[in-house]
């Protein structure tokens, strides 16, 4: 499996008069779990969609690298998994039917699918609910199903847009444990979140505020560099400064 990394250069995105991103340079290095931290409206979803190729930059660029060499988005696309923030599953289809559908879209062979779906259903503990329709799942289970659909194809790059948003604290902790259990810490993962306490679970954090990058790096190093006790403090200082 190839290792991918993504870099952006003074990335800008405007929606009419609104500047969602004001020239941000990210470095999402390979094989790490990156956290994109910021409050609502900071530009997290816009960044995710730009990385997933679903939006085009107004200025600046997104570059993809495969094993260190520049690569086209088309090379990355087959092994990219993306989980949108908004509800995006089919309420009238069951867990099994979702997995079957995504299996077909990713063209997985029967053996891979059988092994992978069993593994995913086991880790997410959703195997007892396979017949249940997505519309009847709890918030946490729904997010887990979204994650399973994304992970079914064993992606090389995983983009999760606020996967824990609106999920109760216990389910949130479960979700992070799940990410590690699934080996998500061995591929490039970008997780966006508005929960500051989740920042410490990431190998790298990128603090996004109002379309600009406040800080990025290892969580501890960032705190130390800003001589802050918590990430909230950095945001409060950033907003005042």
């Amino acid at each position: 499996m190839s290792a991918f990394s993504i870099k952006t250069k003074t990335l800008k995105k405007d929606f009419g008069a609104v500047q969602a991103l004001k020239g941000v340079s990210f470095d999402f290095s390979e094989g790490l779990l990156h956290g994109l931290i910021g409050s609502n409206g900071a530009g997290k979803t816009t960044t995710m969609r730009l990385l997933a190729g679903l939006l085009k930059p107004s200025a600046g660029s997104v570059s993809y690298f495969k094993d260190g060499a520049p690569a086209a988005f088309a090379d990355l696309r087959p092994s990219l998994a993306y989980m949108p923030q908004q509800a995006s599953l089919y309420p009238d289809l069951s867990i099994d039917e979702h997995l079957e559908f995504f299996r077909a879209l990713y063209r997985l062979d029967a053996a891979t699918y059988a092994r992978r779906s069993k593994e995913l259903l086991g880790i997410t503990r959703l195997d007892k609910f396979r017949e249940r329709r997505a519309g009847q799942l709890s918030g946490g289970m729904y997010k887990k199903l979204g994650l399973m659909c994304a992970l079914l194809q064993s992606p090389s790059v995983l983009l999760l847009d606020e996967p824990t948003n609106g999920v109760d604290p216990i389910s949130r902790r479960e979700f992070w444990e799940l990410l590690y259990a699934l080996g998500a810490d061995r591929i490039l993962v970008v997780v966006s979140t508005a929960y500051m306490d989740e920042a410490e679970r990431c190998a790298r954090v990128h603090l996004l505020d109002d379309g600009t990058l406040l800080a990025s790096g290892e969580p501890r190093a960032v705190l130390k560099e800003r001589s802050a006790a918590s990430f909230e403090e950095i945001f409060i200082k950033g907003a005042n400064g």
Partner: protein
Amino acid sequence: MNAFNLHRAYSVARKEVMHILRDPFTLALALGLPVMLVTFFGYAIDFEVRDIKVAVADRDNGPAARRLKEIFAASGYFRVLEPAGNPVEMLDSRRADAALFIEPGFSRDALGGRPARVQFVLDGSDNSKGAVMMGYLPGIQRAAATRLYGVEPPPAPLSIETRFLFNPELSSRWFMVPGLGAIIIGLLAILLTAMTVAREWENGSMELLLSTPVRPLEIIIGKLAPYGLLVLIGVFFVYLSARLVFGVPFLGSHLLFLLACLLFITAALSQGLFISVVTRQQQVAMQVGIISGLLPSMLLSGFIFPVESMPAFFQYFTMILPPRWFMEAARGIFLKGSGLAELAVPLLALAGLSLLLLALALKKFKTDLEP
């Protein structure tokens, strides 16, 4: 590497089938509504005027007058009323549509072999009904002459003999029911697909789909196929209703009819898909679908008003409307038994329009989330 893949299109289609099967409303709409509407409106749309109330003032009271009244009643179009008062008052108060005056001496003249006259007064305020009544009178006249004088009336020196080919009974139902079927099927096909892509956008699932390797053409084919099949079943029910309920004759080839239906359904489904792709909202798609699917096909397809009698601009304009071509094909196959050679133009036009609409839908299919 990531070209069109039939398996992916199939899996999109299979998913769509699941949606349909779990949505009894769509299923009932697609299967039940066309046949219901065709049967319902097929009875209502009838240009024939029957049961015309004729108030008779019989001042003759002879055997010939009685026979004349029988002939009117036996025609099936007229109902003879014999009021006590003045028939003109009945016309005034709309209790009668026409009045027949038989003057004394009618029987004497008619049975004596001399020319006999009666007066028929029509309510001209409803001119369409009046024109139809006028159309029935020559037949009555001929029947009366034969029965009263025992001979056919001598032919006029110059006679124009009119005979209707293809629809000898000139039953407007035979003519209207296949056309009505075309309109309802077309509208249904447009509405069904108009919702599908818009639903993916509203559901949020489009964002997820676009991040997978699935291609727009695979989504489009996967969405067209199940609805095509569904609408085809609807067509079958409409066909049964036309044949069994209305007794419409079917003179042409069933295979050719199937081909025409497939082409027309594809065109209508593609039109709906195009609307869906562009609007991306179910509500808007539904409204645009109804307006674009109903008005042109009602008014400009030749369903009611013949295309040949429209202003030149509209005659050309109707060429971009699939129902216009299907109307021609369906009526031709049903009533004339037209073959492939006669229907080459409408069939090719339908095929061309299908491809055009499909290409438009594909071109307008957004593969990103740009507003």
